């Protein structure tokens, strides 16, 4: 084995899956969605900023050109409404008091 290959092997270990990653955070889920996405606005959106930027990966493009959104594992960070440049596509609030993300060692 060449020395470069050995260095690469030593430095690489499997990254955890996204599900495992999100599973490390605690979400107290309220039955009411605090963020809703207007599918009609998204259908005409070609830039799709939310898809790559949402740290919780909650915006999923569908085969018919829409966006599937689930509010449950949300960090409440605000990235989506800041990067989305379509007026009215995202309505964004905080969850009801006591619900949503709960950090522990952050």
């Amino acid at each position, binding site marked *: 084995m060449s020395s470069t290959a050995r*260095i690469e092997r*030593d*430095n*690489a*270990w499997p*990254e*955890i899956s*996204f599900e*495992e*990653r*999100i599973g*490390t*955070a605690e979400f*107290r889920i309220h039955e009411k969605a605090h963020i809703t996405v207007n599918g009609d606005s998204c259908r005409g959106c070609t*830039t799709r*900023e*939310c898809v*790559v*930027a949402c*740290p*919780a*990966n909650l915006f999923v493009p569908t085969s018919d050109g829409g966006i599937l959104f689930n509010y449950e594992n949300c*960090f*409440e*960070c*605000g*990235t989506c*409404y*800041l*990067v989305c440049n379509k007026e009215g596509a995202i309505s964004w*609030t*905080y*969850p*009801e*008091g*006591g619900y*949503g*993300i*709960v*950090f*522990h*060692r*952050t």
Partner: protein
Amino acid sequence: MMTSPTQHDADIIVVGAGPAGSCAAIAAARAGKSVILIERGPFPGSKNMYGGVVYPRILDELVPSWWETMPVQRWVVKRSTMLLSDSGALNIDFRANSWGAPPYNGATAYRPDFDNWLANHAVEAGARLVCSTTVTGLLRDSNGRIQGVSTDRPDGDLHAPIVIACDGVNSFLAKQSGLYPHTDASNFTLGVKETLALPKHVIDERFGVRDNLGVDIEILGGTSGVNGGGFIYTNLDTIALGVVLKLPKLAAQQKRPEQIIAELKRHPAIAPLIEGAEVKEYSAHVIPEAGLDMMPTMVADGMLVAGDAAAMCLAAGIWLEGVNFAMASGMYAGQAAAEAIAKNDVSSRGLSGYTDRLEKSFVLRDHRKLRKVPHLVLSDRVQHKYPAFVAGVVERVFRVDNPHPKPGVRRIVREERKKAGIGLLDLLRDGWTGMRGFG
């Protein structure tokens, strides 16, 4: 403007029990005013994440001997700035053993611990802390004067002549009051981080520290071409590793935040530090980055805005300080609000003691001094060209290429500058901005 205390639930309502809100509540309660401190999380700190270092000297005034009770992970005695190119790294280290003894300098701490501790001081000072309650809007009388806040609790309206908005970077209150229409994505960065578990002795060995002493590493480069930076902080038995990413740049490319973290973790200068560590917690939060250029009006009739809600976080490359700016601005807001109640004038004029204090203190002075630095640090040249340029120069200065004789440094700099595609004028201009900005 007169106040009518009889109909009020308190003199002052503070929204958000982060560092700004708790310090506002402590200061106002100490001045003898009745204070309600409202937090939407189940406990103070439960919604809050950051990189990892608090600089608490500003607490000398509010919590004497704070270091005796503060929930500290490690006292920072070593600060490093790391410049990463694709394959190399330049590390500038500074170690100060004096930072490991009172009155200290900075400490790593978990925000759920720290914020909870600070909010307890507000309670001890006499403030009423109400958790699990989201403030949904401002209450106004028929003349438009602020009268308090509405919340998501049944019959949850709370009345007070002064509201202090310490509700963080997405501040709905500042937006609703028209003070802060800040939704321009280019003023913000996204921070994502992993809390990585390793045995304490392994962290001690890898980072060259002992006991409860720790390290703070700021990283330039290594963010997969997205403008931003990285950080590594040592806690007792975890490492906080993360990146901050300029929002429009992140949104305009294909790599997701966790993939950018994964690439940073694989960099040959980083990988050995964290090898074998397990992800204990993944987290994300947005940072207001633009400093003075995005700050809102901070005083209105019956209302003050402090901390991240007023974009007071100082994010200038090797500095990522927000907690101390939040604590200071919160304290000044609490003091000014108490003063306004005492003189029975809650108009913006009556509350102007707040801006006076900000102007006289480090809060606005540091921001003014470093006004240009955030833009410089996040500029395309500094982000995409300088790390490789600097690493290239240093690599060639240290390279022993016998039998060739050593080339002159001036020649190396010229060649590497051209290789990196940096014009001489741009380099001089950035150097000048940097020197003026940091100096």
